[in-house]
């Protein structure tokens, strides 16, 4: 019995981990890109490059940037904010010349769908945001979607009143999930998050002049440049990927925008 136990132990400890023989490219990507990027990864592995596997890690841009700075094994980083990409650039953690702005996005005010058609939100009367109930948004201390949302609410002058009754989430998808579960009255997420979700209604897009422009920079992490990583990088910035991103509610930016 002891020997059998030891055998199982050994297999558990030294058996193969991931799919062996396949090259793995690890992409750290902003949570908001999850649906589009997952679809793209499937296409990439099936059609474009069968010998390269894409490993996707989704979390708030801020969380991922901190982890890359601490040495996490990311090959590519797709961030939802230029500030957090700057954070890595300042630490010389980006492969020179590889950074480009891939996508733009918009913020959307959403609420749980209750069957009735919701009247579009009137941004000239921002105080009525308070009447929607608890508002979910990415944690404005670090999550890009939350930072953009807070900036817009500050411009509107309602942030001090709203802040105490907000629900701060670890990433923007979690704010969407809270609305879908009807745990909050409303949320500010990206337009791409709300697109195609049956359980939420978009009350309105947040006017883009209220907050800094939303940009998604893509870069290769310093020291991780290889042929396989380049192939994934080119695929993500290529025309097929643009089409998928556009369909998912992003604005693909021309030539590094």
């Amino acid at each position, binding site marked *: 019995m002891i020997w059998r136990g030891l055998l199982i*132990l050994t297999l558990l400890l030294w058996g193969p981990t991931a799919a062996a023989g396949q090259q793995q490219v690890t992409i750290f990507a902003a949570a908001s890109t999850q649906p589009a990027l997952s679809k793209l990864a499937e296409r990439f592995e099936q059609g474009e490059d069968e010998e390269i596997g894409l490993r996707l*890690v989704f979390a708030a841009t801020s969380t991922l940037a901190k982890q890359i700075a601490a040495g996490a094994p990311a090959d590519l980083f797709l961030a939802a904010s230029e500030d957090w990409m700057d954070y890595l650039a300042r630490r010389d953690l980006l492969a020179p010349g590889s950074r480009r702005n891939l996508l733009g996005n918009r913020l959307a005010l959403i609420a749980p769908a209750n069957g009735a058609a919701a009247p579009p939100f009137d941004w000239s009367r921002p105080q009525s945001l308070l009447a929607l109930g608890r508002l979910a948004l990415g944690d404005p201390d670090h999550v890009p979607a939350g930072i953009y949302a807070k900036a817009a609410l500050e411009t509107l002058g309602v942030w001090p009143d709203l802040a105490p009754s907000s629900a701060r989430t670890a990433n923007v998808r979690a704010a969407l999930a809270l609305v879908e579960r009807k745990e909050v009255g409303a949320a500010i997420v990206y337009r791409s998050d709300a697109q195609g979700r049956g359980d939420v209604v978009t009350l309105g897009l947040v006017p883009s002049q209220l907050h800094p422009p939303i940009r998604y920079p893509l870069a290769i992490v310093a020291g991780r440049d290889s042929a396989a990583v380049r192939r994934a990088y080119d695929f993500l910035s290529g025309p097929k990927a643009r089409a998928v991103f556009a369909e998912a509610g992003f604005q693909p930016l021309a030539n590094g925008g």
Partner: protein
Amino acid sequence: MLELTPLEWEALLLSLRVATLSVVVSLPFGLFIAWLLARRDFAGKILLDGLVHLPLVVPPVVVGYLLLLLFGRQGPLGAWLYDHLGITLAFNWKGAALAAAVMAFPLMVRAMRLSLEAVDRKLESAARTLGAGRLSVFVTITLPLMWPGLLTAAILGFARSLGEFGATITFVSNIPGETRTLPLALYSLIQSPDGEAGALRLTVIAVVLALAALAASELLARRIKRRLEG
């Protein structure tokens, strides 16, 4: 019986692997510390005792952050390990095992210390007078007598490691196939829209796993008891 998806298998196997490495590595260290605490008197014993128990009382995030500071790429221990042995712990499954081991360590030391203190020292003395060396006494008399304690320590440590979340996500992130253990996969699902069904399934798996571990420990304990008595 519910069919597991590849992602669930991945998380499950990874959890088992992480917990196993965690227990295998910390058992000998834990035994040594338990022996120090139970049998030796030395300056700084209270400090050592406190340090060992620290992971039990500080927030797991603190442990994860300290591990990252120490074993991260720029951390003093992390840099040394990489330069001299080529080992990286941050952001891979071995790091997850380290985080789990640190969190489980106090529980394991406690269990072993208690059983060590319950060993009748007269039996050891008798063996010594019959000419057995210190090490030989420890291996042939002490260890077999504290066997139930060792087993409890291993199972407690294993169960604690399976459930480790806070220190793990802080230290090694949430990378599918590498560090996304059951609790982390569950966390990701809770946070994502459409995650509902998957989260429930993982909850069931986690409960089944915990029950299986407890049942196994109970059965083994009975068997050992019978052998010790018989």
